[in-house]
């Protein structure tokens, strides 16, 4: 059924259709609307057979989910940013124990400085946590990915983060096609846990494993994720059969058939990029051989898929909302691994950190320069060089130049100058 609704609400309804048995909630923007909606559904009785638990921290949220999942309940929670970081120990534990928890990450920057707006630093900080990570491009895909995520997670006995851009998606009102309960039930079988805490068949879960077996345990986790590379497209195909639309999968190409330059990105920015590509291919100044590769599945990383998508281009530009400080891109680093030996030129464009708007204008400019191989290997989109250089100068002059963030804000005029 087509509905106009907020992204968070759409995700909440989709999660509800998946019949979650235990939902843990701790407020943090911008995921809050999702758990609020679920809480209301449990409280008003529209979502039955479900325990909604207001926990005291994200660490507890993930921990409650761990307990519930180990006891055989389909478990769900949502978080973002600092919240994700606060639960990190439990995040690793959930995957280590092989518990198929589904968690929405409403992507948001990580402080300090504290910032509530969108980028991908939170989820990407957990790229090695053993969780599968799926990135939604639209609210529809966010909704769909949750349904697929429960099935995938439970089949693989691995937890999955469904990542959606904070505010840009979570708070955006869009039309979505909300599936029926029958459709979801047809696609998603009841949770049949691989291992469960059961007095009838007791086991000890969470043993201490020493050097004699730890490597093997870790390798098996890796092998499990590699399995997902075939399972994810298969489940996406099945999804299409039931729900009638393409959603999920490992990655999506757009206008790449003849592209010499391929832009690689994740999440909602893909929409803007596609608009820019369309404009660059069509219109008065059209004719650019440029395309887009959208990565839906960041973990496991589809190395072969990325290589295949890029095999005919000359260059690629990874535009990412994350920064691996001290080296550059995070997604880019993964893409480079995929194209090893292919002789491609590759550029990293760091964009949209902390919610900085990624405008079509800026994209037009940077893509055109990239086509001419006229950008730095690591380019910072719309960086205010004046402010940055001022601060760098100051720091050269005075060893103790005060807090950086405040100084920058002062430079851009947000904070009134006091002593300067």
């Amino acid at each position, binding site marked *: 059924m087509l509905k106009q609704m907020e992204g968070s609400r759409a995700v909440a309804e989709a999660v509800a259709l998946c019949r979650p048995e235990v939902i843990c909630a701790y407020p943090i923007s911008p995921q809050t609307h999702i758990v609020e909606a679920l809480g209301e559904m449990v409280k008003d009785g529209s979502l039955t057979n479900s325990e909604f638990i207001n926990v005291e921290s994200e660490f507890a949220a993930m921990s409650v989910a761990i307990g519930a999942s180990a006891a055989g309940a389909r478990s769900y929670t949502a978080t973002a940013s600092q919240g994700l970081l606060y639960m990190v120990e439990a995040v690793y534990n959930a995957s*280590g*124990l*092989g518990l198929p928890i589904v968690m929405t990450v409403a992507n948001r920057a990580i402080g300090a400085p504290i910032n509530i707006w969108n980028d991908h630093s939170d989820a990407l900080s957990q790229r090695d946590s053993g969780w599968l990570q799926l990135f939604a491009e639209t609210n529809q895909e966010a909704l769909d990915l949750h349904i697929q995520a429960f099935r995938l997670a439970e089949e693989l*006995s691995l937890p999955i983060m469904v990542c959606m851009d904070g505010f840009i998606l979570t708070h955006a009102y869009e039309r979505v096609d909300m599936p029926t309960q029958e459709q979801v039930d047809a696609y998603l079988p009841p949770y049949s846990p*691989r*291992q*469960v805490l059961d007095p009838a*068949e*007791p*086991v*000890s*879960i*969470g*043993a201490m*494993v020493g050097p004699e*077996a*730890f490597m*093997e*345990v870790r390798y*098996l986790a890796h092998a499990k994720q590699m399995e997902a590379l075939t399972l994810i497209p298969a489940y996406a195909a099945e999804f299409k059969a039931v729900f009638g639309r393409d959603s999920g999968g490992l990655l999506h190409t757009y206008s790449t058939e003849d592209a010499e330059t391929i832009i690689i990105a994740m999440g909602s920015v893909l929409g803007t990029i596609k608009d820019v590509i369309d404009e660059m291919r069509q219109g008065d100044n059209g004719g650019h051989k440029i395309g887009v590769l959208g990565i839906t599945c960041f973990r496991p990383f589809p190395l072969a898929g990325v290589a295949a998508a890029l095999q005919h281009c000359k260059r690629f530009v990874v535009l990412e909302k994350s920064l691996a400080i001290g080296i550059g891109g995070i997604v880019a680093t993964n893409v480079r691994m995929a194209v090893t030996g292919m002789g491609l030129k590759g550029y990293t464009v760091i964009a949209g950190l902390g919610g900085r708007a990624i405008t079509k204008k800026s994209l037009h400019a940077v893509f055109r320069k990239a086509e001419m191989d006229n950008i730095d290997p690591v380019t910072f989109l719309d960086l205010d060089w004046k402010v940055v250089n001022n601060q760098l100068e100051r720091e050269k002059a005075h060893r103790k130049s005060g807090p950086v963030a405040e100084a920058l804000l002062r430079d851009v005029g947000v904070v009134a100058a006091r002593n300067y």
Partner: protein
Amino acid sequence: MDKPFAITLDPGSSLANLTGSWRTLRPEYVDRLPPCNAACPAGENIQGWLFHAESGNYEKAWRSLVENNPMPAIMGRVCYHPCEGACNREQVDSAVGINSVERFLGDEANKHGWQFAPAAPPTGRRVLVVGSGPAGLSAAYHLTRMGHQAVIYEAGPLAGGMLRFGIPKYRLPREVLDAEIKRLTDFGVEIQLQTKVTNVLEAMKDGFDAVFLGVGAHIAKRAYIPAGDACKVLDAVAVLRDMEGESAPLLGRKVVVYGGGNTALDVARTAKRLGAEEAIIVYRRTREKMPAHHFEVEEALQEGISIKWLTTIKEAGMSEDGGDIMVEKMALDDKGFPQPTGEFERIEANSVVLALGQDADLSLLDNVPGLVVNKGMIEIDAGMMTGHPGVFAGGDMAGNERTVTVAVGHGKLAARAIDSWLRGETWVPPPRHELATFERMNPWYYSDAPKTMRPVLDIIRRQSTFDEVLGGLDETNALFEARRCMSCGNCFECDNCYGVCPDNAVIKLGPGKRFKFNLDYCKGCGICATECPCGAIKMVPEGN
């Protein structure tokens, strides 16, 4: 379940890890000698019979008891219970009332008519027992159990010796005495009354293979006291013996008893019951030095007996009106001996009873070769045998400690030794376990449960009748009393070791079978030994 590798494990699989290899000390179950058993002159296995009494199985308890002592109803009345003096429970609250439980069991046996278990098949050997006092009865009983024919020659008209002729009725009712003697004769002990042995070697010619002498000590010791006619001077043995005769001795209104032993008290208390207005004990030393048992002194005082300590009798009935005695006050010297002070006093007295101790009549032993008499007593070896082979002796005639219980113990030991001797062997006492001292125990586990007091006859009846002074316990409080036993030194299956082992390394073998250690897993921490209430576990170095 499709368990993930390594992180999920099968239940209880740690049994593969044998932690016993960590051990440097190993626990061992031991049995130690309970102090009550160690202190019992009759060699009773007190803890053993309490064991059965605690579970309410009184017949089994009695059967266990009579393996060592055939007269629990008597012993439960007249024994001075050194067991209770040794009882470790004294250090927790108060000693277990062993004596009262013993009496309860004896009375139960009389009430229900329990009989001894059948004796061993006859051996064809005959043993003469001289005297039917406690030593003789005990010896005859044990010999009979072993299949020997025991025949008691008793000089008196009734069996029992000092039990009958030395202990007042109010301490030992005669029906109790008669019942236990009857059980012995029913069992096969033959008693020939009014059969005085004047020559033991002659008597043995009646076809006996050995003899046990238990003639007791019936001859009263005398002290020279100038006496007039107006005041009778009697001896305690005669007074108490006469109590068993047809007419009670005439002692008068005012009776003075001279001496400080239990017999003195018996006579004074008897005099009171015979109607004496005053019964006064005169003793030359202090109360602390009195050989009589404290509780008997206490009971006598309650009954109105007065006691003059540090006093000696100088003369009796010598004054003009005659009805008095003259006493002299004494004072203890540096060494604690009483010395005359020269201070005199007259006390009214119709009679003076001398209770100064007794000697044995050893005339039947004249001309027995090898037999040694020393200070009025027969010398015996560890196996109760005199210097003459085949002649054994026990009881008051062969020991310094003259109590019924000692006599019963002598009888038992002698019977065992005679049995060995008859087989041409020498009796060797079995080795004793190490003493179960209080320090080895963990008394925490015993809750406070003070001794049950036995009912005591009211004072009026005690002064006028020969009813038994001390009552018995009823079943409830006998059971309670039995359950106060701490089982010193011997496992009582309290499950503590089984419960406190952090490694589940104690195996419970089932009722009566105790426990064993699972040395595959025992790490040797020793908690079981520390927490064993009764001290029945010890830690020994591994590898020894």
